[in-house]
Every structure is written in C-alpha cells, then in structure tokens.
C-alpha cells in the first residue's frame, strides 16, 4: 500500500510492506521497520526499533494530525484541497493576497490603493477573540485593491487586500 502526504506543501510518498519480523515503511531509500497494535480508534502503540511509542492520530477532511513524542505534525493527504481553517489549519494566503486566519472584525486598514508597501509592514488590524492582530505585508510591493472597510466582518481566507509584488 502506498500513500502520499503533504507537509507544508512538500509531498512525501510512503509504502507499507511486510518485513521478516513485523512490517516496514519505505520512504525512498529509507526503510523503517515497525510493529504496531491498535489501542483505540485514535491511539496506536507502535514499536520503532526497540522503543514502544504511543501515537495518537485523528483525521478531518484529509488533514491528519499525528501526535508522537509530544509533538503534533499535521499531514495533508495529497491530491486533496484542504482549507479547513476551523480544524486549525495554517494555510497561508498567496504572496499577492492579504487575508486573515481567523474570523474577525476589521478595526483599521492602514493603507490605500496604490500605496507602496514593504515586507512585514502592518497593513490591516483585525480583532478576533478580543485581541488585535496586525496583518503584515507578505512582500514588498504595491496595493492593487482593497476589498473591505473598517468595521467589516471578515472570514478566514477572504482576500482583504490584493498586492502587486515587487520583483
């Protein structure tokens, strides 16, 4: 069985095969022997060369959350578009778009169309959960268009500002 996952945009392909003792995962040249027992729907006890590890996994809309050694890694199933912010996704807007990760209220837009802006310059202030968050420019460039006004409610991923990146 072969599977492909995306981690921050990079694709990883992995095969599971029988090994002489237990099983192994094959990632390119690397082979990882393991043995496993399922504890519950979301919990596995996996043996990686002599160490038994508790692994916790949950999936939603093609996003897999894998907890191992006290760290959570989010892997997206390849070939699936996943913009499920509600599930804690951390998808960043394209380089020529400014959007927010959280639903919120636009407190103040600090730039106007045509303004020249620099990387990390604060463009918009959005309030979510009672906290003000500064949204900064992902690039040097120029403001092409602005799609909201102060006081508007904005949803995650909606482009607030479109930029023309300098190159």
């Amino acid at each position, binding site marked *: 069985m072969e599977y492909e996952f995306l981690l921050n945009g990079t694709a990883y392909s992995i095969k599971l095969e029988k090994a002489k003792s237990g099983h192994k995962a094959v990632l390119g040249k690397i082979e990882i022997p393991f043995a496993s027992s399922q504890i519950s729907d979301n919990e596995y006890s996996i043996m990686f060369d002599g160490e038994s590890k508790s692994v916790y996994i*949950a999936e939603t809309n093609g996003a897999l959350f894998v907890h191992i050694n006290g760290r959570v890694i989010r892997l997206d199933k390849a070939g699936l578009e996943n913009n499920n912010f509600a599930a*804690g996704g951390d998808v960043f807007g394209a380089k020529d778009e400014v959007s927010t990760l959280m639903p919120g209220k636009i407190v103040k837009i600090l730039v106007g169309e045509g303004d020249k802006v620099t990387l990390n310059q604060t463009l918009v202030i959005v309030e979510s959960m009672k906290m003000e968050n500064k949204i900064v420019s992902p690039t040097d460039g120029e403001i092409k268009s602005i799609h909201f006004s102060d006081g508007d409610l904005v949803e995650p991923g909606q482009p607030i500002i479109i930029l023309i990146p300098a190159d």
Partner: protein
Amino acid sequence: MFKKILIANRGEIAVRVMKACRELGIKSVAVYSTIDRTALHVQSADEAVCIGEAPPSESYLNIDSIIETAKKTGADAIHPGYGFLAENHLFAERCEKEGIVFIGPTSRSMKLVGDKVASRAVTENVGIPLIPGMKHKSTDPDECLTAAKKIGYPVLLKASAGGGGKGMHVARNKEELKEAIESGMREAKSAFGDPSVYLEKYIEKPRHVEFQVLADNHGDAVHLFERECSIQRRHQKIVEESPSVALDDDLRRRMGETALKVVEVSGYTNAGTVEFLLDENKKFYFLEVNARLQVEHPVTELVVGIDLVHAQIRIAAGEKLWLKQEQLSQRGHAIECRIYAEDPENNFLPSAGKILYMKEPTGPGIRHDCGVYSGSEVSVYYDPILSKLIAYAPTREICCQRMAAALANFPILGIKTDIEFLKDTVNHPEFIAGNTFTNFIEKNMSDWPPETKIDHLNRALTSAALFSSLPKTRISSSDGKSSIPSPWESLGAWEIAGG
C-alpha cells in the same frame, strides 16, 4: 449555607466551581449561550439555562438575563468565575440590590480596586510602594505624551478598566507611544467599554509575583503566600508557580504584610490577589488587586493545602475565617500551565474548531482542570483557554520534570494549542534554573519551534500511513461525533430547565 448557586461563566472555571458546589451539597445552575449547548459546563451542572446568543454581550455579559435566571431557578448566590462579569462592580451591585449573594467582594471595594488610578491613591497614602506613573487616567493622547516625558521612557500603557493584559502596550519612544495610545484606547473601549488609559514607568526584566488573600466579612484576613507568574506572552500569564524562587522568608513576610495592608485599606473581602512587580534588586512595587478568583489559583491550593473555591463560598455565606496566618505554610512546589487554543508559531493567534481527539493527563501529582472534551467545539467568541494542567511535587526540580512528562503525553488533535510550547518552556534550562522574568519568552523562546527531526517526521509519516491503511469505518469515527446529526438533538427543550 446556600441551597443553589448560579455560575455566571463557562469553560473550566465553571466546571471547577460546580464540582465545589457538589462537594458542599449545593445545587448548581449553569447558564450558557446558544452555541454552548453541549459545552462541558452545561453537562456538569444540576440545571442548565440558555441565556442568549453566542456573542458575550448577549449571554455571559447579559446581566439582566443572568439575574432573571437566578431568580427563576431560585439560586440564592452567583459565582462569577473569572473574566466576563467577575470584576464588573455594576453586576455585583445589581446582585446586592436583588438580594442575591455575589460570591466575591462588595461592589464598593470592587469598584475601588478596579479603578487603578483610584486604588493607587488609596494605597500610596499608607506608604505602599508603587511604580512611578500618571496620577489619573486619561483619554487625551497629548496628556499621555507629556506624562511619558516626565516619567521617562520606556513606559507601559494600560487600559484603566483593564485586566489580563488587554490594551497593554510598551513604548520605548514617542512614536511607539503614539501608536500604542491609539490601539490601546480602541482595545480598552471594545473590551471594557471605557477607552481611558494610563501610563507608568516600565520596569525592565521584572518578575511578576502576586499574593493570594482571603478576607471574611468580619474584618479578619490572611494571605496564602505568593505565586510567581512571570512567564507571559502578549502580557498574559501562561505558566505560574508557587513558591517563587526569588523570595526568601524575609521578603515573603514583608510582601505578605503589604498585601494584607492593601486588603485592609481597600476594605476588600472574599478571595483576591494582590499583584506586585519584583525588580532585579528584590525591590517590589504594588500593581493592582485582582478582585476575583485567579486562573492560577490551583498552585496555591496545592502548596498551601486549601480549597479556594470552597473558601470563597463559605466566606460569602458569612462564615468567620477559620484559618490563622501562623498555621499556614507552603509545602512542596506546584506549577500550572495554561492550555490555550492558540498557535505559538503564529504569534499565539487563537485557534478555533473542533477537538477531534483529546486525552487528559492523569497520575501522581497531576491535576487537570478541564473545560472541553473530545468532540467539543472551540468557538471564536470566547477566551481560548481550554484547560489548566497543574503539577505538584516535593521539589521544583521534580515538579518541572513531572509537568514536562505530562505535557509530552497530552494529545489535543484538530486545533492548535500551546502544549508543545509549554513543554519546551518548562524544559528550558533557564526555566529550570529559575531565571523567570517577564521577558522570558522573547529572550529564550524566540527561535521556537525547533526544526522537525527527519526521524520524527518519518515516524509520523509511517503512523499516518498505518492509520490510513485501516478500514474507513474506523476513521469516520476518529472524529468524536458522527457526522449524522442525532435525531434527538432537541434544542428549545433545554429551556424547560429553568421551569
């Protein structure tokens, strides 16, 4: 003693108060907003009443609706928890008018200590050390700029009505201050309905040390020693501990006495916290009184061996204080980590969504005060605190290790949390060494997160493939609740609770 207490709050603190009620043989009433119908605090109460829509102003801040519910359900007291209406003296006053006991200080003393400027005046008179600052609050930027010049930069700008760091900004020069005033006033207005701010000298590399106090309605008071809460992000505490490594017996005694003096001059009653800044030379400055039960109250409970919520309720019921200062002592060490739905990799931006899976830490020396469960929805409407993990051990060293071990085996999947960040914090050599200053995170955690090791990634990928190889039936239920809505989710009917 009270027959029935309404808890005007949600999340872990509401659940914690309800448990205390049960232990004291008191019935509890939960109030909830429409999106909190399946929240844990609703399940934990003896009764539950919906009091309005999701936005706090329509539910958890809706004084009329809460008072009405208290009357309808026959509650003879209200516990406000922390946040929401906990430090709203108008709410306390309303309770007093309606003949419902407000479990907290009187509206009068709450109003006094709640107004930082007024409380500075009162305390200054009796010689309590204060940080140099403006004499009164202001909404005039120019006035603030002039004051800043007199005090000298860096200065700290705070919302006058504020708390929990909301509306707080540090300014190191005139330009920064201008920006700070503008957004600080905006935040103050939206968070507290009052845009007034004020300025004070910003103390570099301080520790945040606070003293827990209990005062009865008969003039008796004790302090329950200190909590150090220096580990903060966005001016909000995320790790608290007791005792503080920075205090010796003499300093502890002097600060405790000062705390009790503050309580005395402000006529404060019930549980409260007196906050201090402690500078590098062990000089301490009074900051403010928090007129509520603190988020971090459990560390005191573990180290001093009392139950603060029980104490609040008994004091509010009129009991005379049963504790004597000389009988109280600290034993062992306790650390609390606040579990927030937020993304430490992205400026601690709150994270909402469904908790697909959670497993609570348990075992020796571990306490978990939790407000959520596998399958619950974390909403954007409220403070993103999910729970509090508290570790207790005979020594600080073991306590750090115990906390780190518990955090390492505490999966919350589906939303971002600060669990990994907290684990690396309590594991940090500087933390273990006790070098805990309010700038700890900028100074020591700026390079967080560590890079993912290839071995670790490979094991995660292997696990993901293994998981994906399993029959779909199982995966569909990996999400705590089935997608098919229950035919029995009968909503309106909940309101019969009050009847």
